[in-house]
């Protein structure tokens, strides 16, 4: 076999991952990719001695399995690029090139990805080589890195013909904090979990769950039912809160003030509930491996049911109004369209992919925690426009509320085992997938023969989905950029790490 097969959160000895020649690696990845249900969840390099070990994990959504294979190389080697045939590999090869100097021959454009601190070359962020078109009829619009608003930095370079956008290139990296290296250098579990909550603070519980689930698997400690329950619950509350906030922001960008005010205030009881539960509106400090400082009590259950009973009528009322307002719909429909095929090509995940008809949802395809017993039926939309992404949010909110109500009927007893001294198994590999509100979050860890982390790889759904935004704005008026951007609401820091 040229690859090994694992499921979500299964820890395996690292030797089980076949190391094959680059030619075999190349051919196997291409042949596995022939199936539409296969996509790449990570492809990264890490050093062992003077060598590099490059591991690629492909998720097969039909079989709920991950196919993992690897090859070995040295820094600054040259090999043929997979991206020429599989465009979704473009970002991964750029990252490997940036960090280890490997040249992928035939790659459409090997340029730095995020100007990581540990990069192998001297490229400077101020010299990013943007795509250019020479023409007297076209002009460029540069926006950022600092944007007009309370928002993270990134540089957007538009090439426009009059008001129409021909091309957009998004340059990121400004938020790079060296998180993956901190994961390796720290030996402190409290530090690592705090780091996971800060990968992207707007999806803190999803990243923290991905880490906690992974850590427990690595340490061979079975997660208690109550903790699993807490993690699933908090990620769905996060989804409701962020989707509601995003719908409010979409209203702002089309100047529908009432929608903004109502939806903006409806987000508040969700985040306030998180604070009542764990003392932090964004759920930071709630998720801990092996443990939780904040048990879910019967009073909290009554509180949450009460919040839902007030949330639902107001939410439905404003949504019923929104979907019949011609002035609102005319701004959302057919704006910022990406097709299903484009989404497959770029390896898009999560709600942006589902809004274009591509059913990718880890809750269904690689279920974990409560989704093993509560089968999840992903919601999809057809058109891939701003309106589809808005409709999808509305429906996912309703779906998550119903999941939570169902889970509240049966809260598992708290039995916290003291596993604080558990350590990861030696020479082990584990992948953890979680469906955050943006989409598939992937954490992957490898330990050495002493059980120390030697690789920690994080993939936020934004890694691929930023390209979806760049494609979606083509042929739109530049004045529609803000609304299209909001409809994706991607993470800068999640990409930059």
């Amino acid at each position, binding site marked *: 076999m040229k690859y090994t097969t694992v499921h979500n959160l299964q820890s395996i000895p690292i030797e089980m991952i076949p190391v094959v020649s680059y030619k075999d690696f190349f051919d196997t990845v291409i042949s596995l990719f022939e199936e539409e249900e296969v996509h790449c969840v990570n492809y990264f390099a890490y050093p062992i001695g003077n060598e590099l070990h490059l591991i690629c994990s492909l998720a097969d959504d039909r079989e709920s399995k991950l196919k993992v294979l690897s090859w070995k190389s040295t820094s600054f080697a040259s090999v043929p690029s997979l991206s020429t045939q599989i465009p979704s590999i473009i970002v991964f090869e750029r990252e490997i090139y940036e960090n280890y100097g490997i040249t992928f021959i035939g790659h459409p454009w090997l340029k730095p990805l995020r100007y990581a601190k540990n990069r192998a070359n001297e490229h400077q962020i101020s010299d990013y080589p943007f795509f250019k078109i020479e023409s007297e009829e076209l002009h460029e619009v540069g926006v950022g890195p600092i944007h007009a608003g309370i928002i993270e930095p990134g540089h957007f370079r538009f090439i426009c013909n009059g008001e129409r956008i021909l091309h957009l290139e998004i340059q990121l990296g400004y938020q790079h904090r060296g998180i993956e290296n901190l994961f390796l250098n720290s030996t402190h579990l409290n530090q690592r979990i705090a780091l996971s909550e800060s990968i992207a603070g707007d999806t803190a519980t999803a990243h923290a769950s991905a880490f906690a689930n992974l850590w427990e698997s690595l340490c061979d400690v079975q997660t208690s039912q109550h903790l699993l329950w807490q993690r699933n619950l908090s990620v769905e509350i996060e989804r409701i809160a962020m989707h509601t906030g995003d719908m409010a922001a979409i209203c702002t960008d089309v100047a529908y003030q009432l929608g903004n005010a109502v939806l903006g205030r409806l987000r508040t009881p969700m985040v306030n509930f998180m604070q009542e539960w764990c003392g932090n509106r964004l759920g930071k400090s709630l998720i801990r491996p092996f443990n939780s400082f904040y048990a879910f009590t019967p009073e909290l259950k009554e509180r949450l049911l009460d919040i839902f009973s007030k949330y639902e009528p107001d939410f439905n009322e404003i949504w019923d109004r929104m979907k019949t307002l011609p002035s609102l719909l005319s701004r959302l429909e057919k704006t910022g369209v990406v097709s299903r095929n484009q989404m497959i090509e770029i390896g898009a995940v999560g709600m942006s992919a589902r809004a274009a008809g591509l059913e990718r949802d880890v809750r269904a395809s690689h279920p974990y925690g409560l989704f093993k017993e509560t089968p999840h039926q992903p919601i999809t939309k057809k058109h891939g426009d701003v309106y589809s992404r808005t409709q999808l949010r509305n429906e996912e909110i309703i779906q998550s509320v119903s999941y939570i109500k169902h889970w509240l009927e049966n809260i598992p007893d708290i039995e916290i085992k003291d596993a604080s001294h558990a350590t990861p198994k030696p020479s082990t590999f584990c992948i953890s997938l979680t469906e955050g509100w943006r989409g598939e979050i992937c954490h992957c860890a490898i330990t050495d023969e002493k059980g120390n982390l030697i690789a920690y790889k994080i993939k936020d759904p934004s890694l691929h989905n930023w390209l979806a935004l760049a494609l979606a704005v083509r042929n739109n008026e530049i004045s529609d950029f803000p609304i299209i951007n909001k409809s994706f609401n991607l993470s800068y820091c999640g990409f*930059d790490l």
Partner: protein
Amino acid sequence: MLKEIKIRLHQGSQFIKDVRNVEVPGIFKGRPVISTKNCDEVALVELCPTAAISVNPFQIDLGKCNFCGACAFHSPDKIQFTKDYHLAVNEREALIIRAGENKALIVNKEKRRPEIERFFKQSFKIRQVSAGGDNSAELELNASGNVQFDSGRFGFEFVASPRHADAVLITGPITENMAQPLETCFSDIPSPKVIILCGTDAISGGVFQNSKALDRSFIEKHPIDLYIPGNPPHPLTFINGILDFIGKKP
């Protein structure tokens, strides 16, 4: 239009009238109080993820604390987080909380530049710069302007251009890749100008303090006017901090 009015009526009145004294619901990790009881202090130092706890004397540095609650969970007799959300100060040392003290954190008017109140009391415009922020402080700053917190009523607001701003408010630990854009933004703000560090990451680097990917020279180079701790700071912490700083009574 009638439908809009109906929806509006269903919303009732949402805004918080008394932002200085309103009680936040449930658990809130605000200003900690530390008792003088004996406990295994070294264990607390070791479990803290951001090296915020130190001994001899036992103290917590709120500029480093990321409010994870691990210490209070471990030794509830020793450390308790109160519901006091008034956390902003204008002197870095004031963020150090010592055992046996239970004092409100305040903006020390003596140490504040004299022109601040005169210039900014009625109108204070802030340019926010996220320099490695994780979008949590950013979300809370946005929430400060929503219909509940409604910070706009107090005369301060966020502006798009540094040239319209009186202050730069920094979130995040200041990454190397953002160091230059931050400096450029600050130099574009007309004087007199103010620097605010918002959130633990900005104040000390927080959980990123040991990362080589940071460049915090901006903070060494320029005097800091206001520190707003939190991970992220609650909207009430932010709003009250600014009100105290510009000397405005709500």
